[in-house]
């Protein structure tokens, strides 16, 4: 092997059969190859063909082994669902700017099992057209963020699940006709709440959280809630026996405690007997630090807020009992 090639790298633009073959050849020569492809998968046109000219060979039979080889080659780094935005520098020393689009999938973990594409929406929700183009490139205008794909991923790949959460800006609230802005479907509500000023947001949550009958269902079904003595059971924080429990403190504590690990599965809202839109809280918190809860549900006095932040810092996981 030529020592000169050791630290040199090549960028291949386009993951069709030509790009794949070029990448493989270069990689086998010892070059580090970056293969950029704008769609979610390499394969290109050939993957869409049945037979190839002139031998009438099966297209996939030729392509598939190469695709797999490319994806597993130690010298090839796939940058799928990415686009080249700019090239600068000169021969031998290029700087390339690549835009990687959000895929909601952690590629290091994805096993390609395909379970996420098998899930269906809850039958009660009606939507026209396709909900997604595929699970990687989710159609953001129609995904309702039911969370089923994530759940399927978690179930199939318990140890290493790859689906991350989808984002919530689907049907853009501001573009909706007024009558559709009042709905309670999570994605609409989340945007409505996000657009409220602080005072109306505080009023909105005051009204919703006053429904709470303290069943602890949202904690019971939560996959990331840690059992043990939390502030919710501590009379110094939440007075026992009161309905509704301290508004908004009770639900701020609950959301803050899981803020860093919530997978937005939506079970808390589904099991809530009084239909508090808990999912909305977690939609809004999803890509923000747990402290964002204090803005999402305003109205907590600063003293209690600081006390809570300090406390959670001190005791991030309270009373954990791993072995039961």
């Amino acid at each position, binding site marked *: 092997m030529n020592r000169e090639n050791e630290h040199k790298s090549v960028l291949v633009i386009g993951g069709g059969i030509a790009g794949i073959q070029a990448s493989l050849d270069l990689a086998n020569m010892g070059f580090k190859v970056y293969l950029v492809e704008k769609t979610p998968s390499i394969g290109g046109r050939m993957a869409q063909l049945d037979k190839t000219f002139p031998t009438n060979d099966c297209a996939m039979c030729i392509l598939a082994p190469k695709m797999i080889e490319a994806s597993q080659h130690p010298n090839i780094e796939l940058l799928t669902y990415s686009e080249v935005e700019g090239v600068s520098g000169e021969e031998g020393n290029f700087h390339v700017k690549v835009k990687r689009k959000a895929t909601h999938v952690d590629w290091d973990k994805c096993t390609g099992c395909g379970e996420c594409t098998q899930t269906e929406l809850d039958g009660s929700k009606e939507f026209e057209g396709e909900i997604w183009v595929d699970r990687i490139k989710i159609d953001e205008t129609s995904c309702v963020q039911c969370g089923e794909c994530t759940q399927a991923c978690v179930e199939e790949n318990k140890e290493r699940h790859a689906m991350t959460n989808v984002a919530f800006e689907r049907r853009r609230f501001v573009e909706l006709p007024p009558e559709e802005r009042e709905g309670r479907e999570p994605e609409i509500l989340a945007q409505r709440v996000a657009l409220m000023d602080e005072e109306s947001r505080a009023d909105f949550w005051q009204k919703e959280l006053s429904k709470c009958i*303290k069943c602890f269902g949202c904690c019971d079904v939560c996959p990331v809630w840690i059992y043990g003595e939390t502030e919710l059971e501590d009379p110094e924080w939440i007075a026992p*026996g009161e309905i509704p429990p301290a508004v908004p403190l009770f639900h701020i504590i609950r959301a803050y405690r899981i803020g860093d690990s919530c997978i937005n599965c939506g079970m808390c809202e589904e099991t809530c007997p009084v239909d508090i839109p808990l999912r909305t809280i977690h939609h809004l918190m999803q890509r923000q630090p747990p402290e964002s809860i204090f803005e999402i549900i305003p109205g907590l006095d600063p003293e209690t807020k600081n006390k809570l932040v300090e406390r959670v810092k001190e005791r991030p996981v309270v009373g954990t009992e791993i072995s039961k």
Partner: protein
Amino acid sequence: MNCDLVLTVCPFCGCGCQFYLEVLDGEITGVVPCKTDEVSGGQLCIKGRNAAGFIYHRDRLKSPLVRRNGKFEETSWDEALEIVSGRLSEIKQLQGADSIGILSSAKCTNEENFLMMKFARAVIGTNNVDHCARLCHASTVLGLVNSFGSGAMTNSIPEIEGAGCIFVIGSNTMEQHPLVSSRVLRAKERGAKLIVADPRRIPLVEFADVHLQHRPGTDVCLLNGIMNLILSWNLADNDFIAGRTEGFEEFKRKVGEYSPEKVCQITGVDRAALEKAARWYGEAEKASILYAMGITQHTTGTDNVESCANLAMLTGNVGRKSTGVNPLRGQNNVQGACDMGALPNVYSGYQSVRDEASRGKFEKAWGVELPQEPGLTVTEMIDAALEGSLKAMYIMGENPVLSDPDVNHVRKALSELDFLVVQDCFLSDTAEFAHVVLPACSFAEKEGTFTATDRRVQRGRKAIGPIGDSKPDWVIITELARRMGSTQFNYESPQAIMEEIVNLTPSYGGISYERLDSGEVLAWPCPSKEHPGTKLLHEEIFARGKGRFFAIDYEQPAELPDEEYPFILTTGRVMFQFHTGTMTRRVPALEREASTGFVELNPEDAARLSIVQGEKVQVKSRRGEIEIKAFVTDRVSPGVVFIPFHFAECAANELTSRNLDPEAKIPEFKVCAVKIYKGDKHG
């Protein structure tokens, strides 16, 4: 490792939520909600979520106990049953069958209640069989039969969601029937008007469009006032009245006497609020009434129920979807226990013991002669025990020492008995008075059916084997009946009992385990195998033919405040405990939330008596006295205090009065006079 999910019915309130018990290697590890259940839809309240919490409690009775020299000693089933059958036979022979009283249980299955009433009638030979429905909805069973011909909820729970106006009177729905309140809130979300009439600011008031905070016991007056306004605004449904009802003219004259001025003065309700309520209820296309103990537990309980029925008929709000008169029953099988005839005057399916044809049918089926005079009610049994005419009692799964009014009186009565058998999961306060205690299985250890408040019959399933030496109630009754010489108790399983129920009870005629297990949702009446069940009653015609209006005058509660006892005490429950707490007080998560009782006191009254938040005070009535923590809150009006009845250490029923509704014999738990003072004064 073997993991099972067993679908069963929640053992607490009458909503009848189904859930799964999670069973790991024969041990229950938790409760999992059931999304396909039509009432709960995967949602449960805190009691439901903790329903498995008491099953393995160390206090569970594990073997029969017999009292020797004043102390309980463990014994064998053989000996315990020998003593019970021997003593009961002896008392029956010497004192007559009517000197024995039997309390069945709203916590037991339909099959067990049927067996218990069969045991009372066919083996003991008495109609002295009753259960705690006497203390909650006896006036409903009577009142709605008088008005409509059927004493049960007219509509089903999911329908509430579609109502245009919901009138909640005397029901703390959010705390006591959480899964019903979720329907109320959903209806509200869709734009329904919510009217709440309650002397307290209950949590549902927060969401009400109008709150009628009437004085305890003035319900008839309030309802007459609303009906007067509806009539004067011509909002009555005249076609409905003419076509489907009778007794309207007399009723109309009576209601005419209740002018808004008079009503506001008596009830203490603001006139504008009264008018709003009348307008919204009268104008709604579909209006639904929900009520519970606030209506029934009065000396005028039956009148209150009939007034609710009047209001619904006046506006044509019966027999259609999302309307109706909906009594919310408090226990998971109190509807079923009534249906099964654990009542002194009827057999299963409300077939009267006086009616010769019905009696003949049961006599033929059971091969014995049956008594024809109605027996004693719960409250009358206690009185009879004290007088000495009742010598023995057999109490299954009830705890009258906490649940009945004036418990001093109950304790005295029970200690007068020659022989008392208590059959329960735990050594309840009542069991302390027993001569023999028989350990029964909990809901998780037996098969059977339960009937929810909206007449839905559902399967309870066995998740685990019996704890210790306990046995399912039906097995105990069967074995006891056989020992007492009956040849009519040959059941291999609850399913076999259900077959007998089905044959003898027209309204349950089409119900079978096969149908229930296949997932059918069956509400009675379900007269035949092909019948889909009846979610909506009185659709074309009332069960009694025509709906009957009653002209009802307002009458004051039996005991009113005076100089010596200046406060009105009203009793009730809290979200986190259930009834006498035999089960819930043994669940840590529930006990943590509500560990003891309190007396709710208006800040005005508290200031006058210089009582501060959380202070211990004495509450005294003509019958008893308790020490209890004060909870100062504007949830109650000045002059009214509230105490939950769950807690033995400060039992509200030490104070309550034994005044009964003359027909339904339900005690007036909701009104009695008390005084409050600080311990040091001894005023």
